């Protein structure tokens, strides 16, 4: 349950520059990784299976197939560790959660591209 007070507090931690991400999008997520004293950036590129949560706990599930193995990562969208998220391509989908992609491989795992106008 969210009250105005809690919304105000969460607002201080929300990012304002996030792109509009929807299921079916191909995205590149750049994550900050700290190894000892060093910090580096790592990119993860894949298809958005779905979004969940709200406000500071909003997450995005991204799936890619790496060396024949499906890899899914869940990112906290508003986390400072998520450096940037970039939408590369929009996919035409009819579901909010694309869990059926897990059962598909090869040519069946493709998504038809959706071309959107700027206004959308």
């Amino acid at each position, binding site marked *: 349950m969210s009250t105005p007070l809690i919304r105000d*507090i969460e607002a201080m931690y929300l990012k304002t520059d996030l792109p509009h991400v929807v299921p079916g999008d191909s995205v590149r997520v750049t994550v900050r990784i700290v190894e000892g004293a060093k910090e580096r950036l790592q990119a993860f590129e894949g298809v958005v299976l779905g979004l969940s949560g709200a406000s500071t*706990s909003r997450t995005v599930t991204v799936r890619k197939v790496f060396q024949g193995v499906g890899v899914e990562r869940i990112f906290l969208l508003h986390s*400072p560790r998520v450096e940037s998220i970039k939408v590369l391509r929009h996919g035409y989908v009819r579901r909010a959660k694309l869990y059926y992609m897990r059962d598909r491989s090869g040519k069946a795992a493709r998504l038809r591209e959706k071309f959107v106008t700027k206004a959308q």
Partner: protein
Amino acid sequence: MLPGCVALKRGMTQIFDEKTGDAIPVTVVEVLPMTVTQVKCAATDGYNAVQVGYVSAKAKHVSRPEQGHLTKNNLPLMRKLQEFRVVDSAAFTVGQSFSLAESNLPFEKGEKVKVTGQSIGKGFQGATKRWHFARGPMSHGSKSHRLPGSIGAGTTPGRVLKGKKMAGRMGNETVTTVGLEIVGVLPEKSVLLIKGTVPGVEGGYLTVSYHAKPGVKLKVS
């Protein structure tokens, strides 16, 4: 320095650590402005304490003895009164006010506190939930699914021992959670952000006090 404060539990959320980026679960606690209503000292009362009042009230909500107690010192009527034990009560005067907005409550980020509140009432509950008794087998003809089992020996002692853990009313009791870390202080909103969960319902009254002894500030590295 007042060794704590009274507050309202306002709910929970998740914030991020500025340095590491870790997501931290926090309870949003609204600190209530308090007014000193009585100062007790060892010479007259046998112990050192400060009584504070909070939440302004109409006359019909305050008992006549409490009305007299407050109007005697020209204080506004307050719904709640509470005492804090202090080491030296000479530093306090009646009518003195404490609030997070006035920043005379020494809460700081990174400090550990303990939080006291009334836990959520669970009603009449069985021994499995109330006392974490193990349950019996659920199949193979067993009928003792969530039963408490034996409650004692036979002829000797011939009675059930006092304090035997059984089913009954659970929750709705005073609970103190210790060692909670303050991860944020927002004086302009009168809000403390406390890591983790605190007892009670949203909107319930809490006492937030320092982890250490009265008047002694506990620093954590």
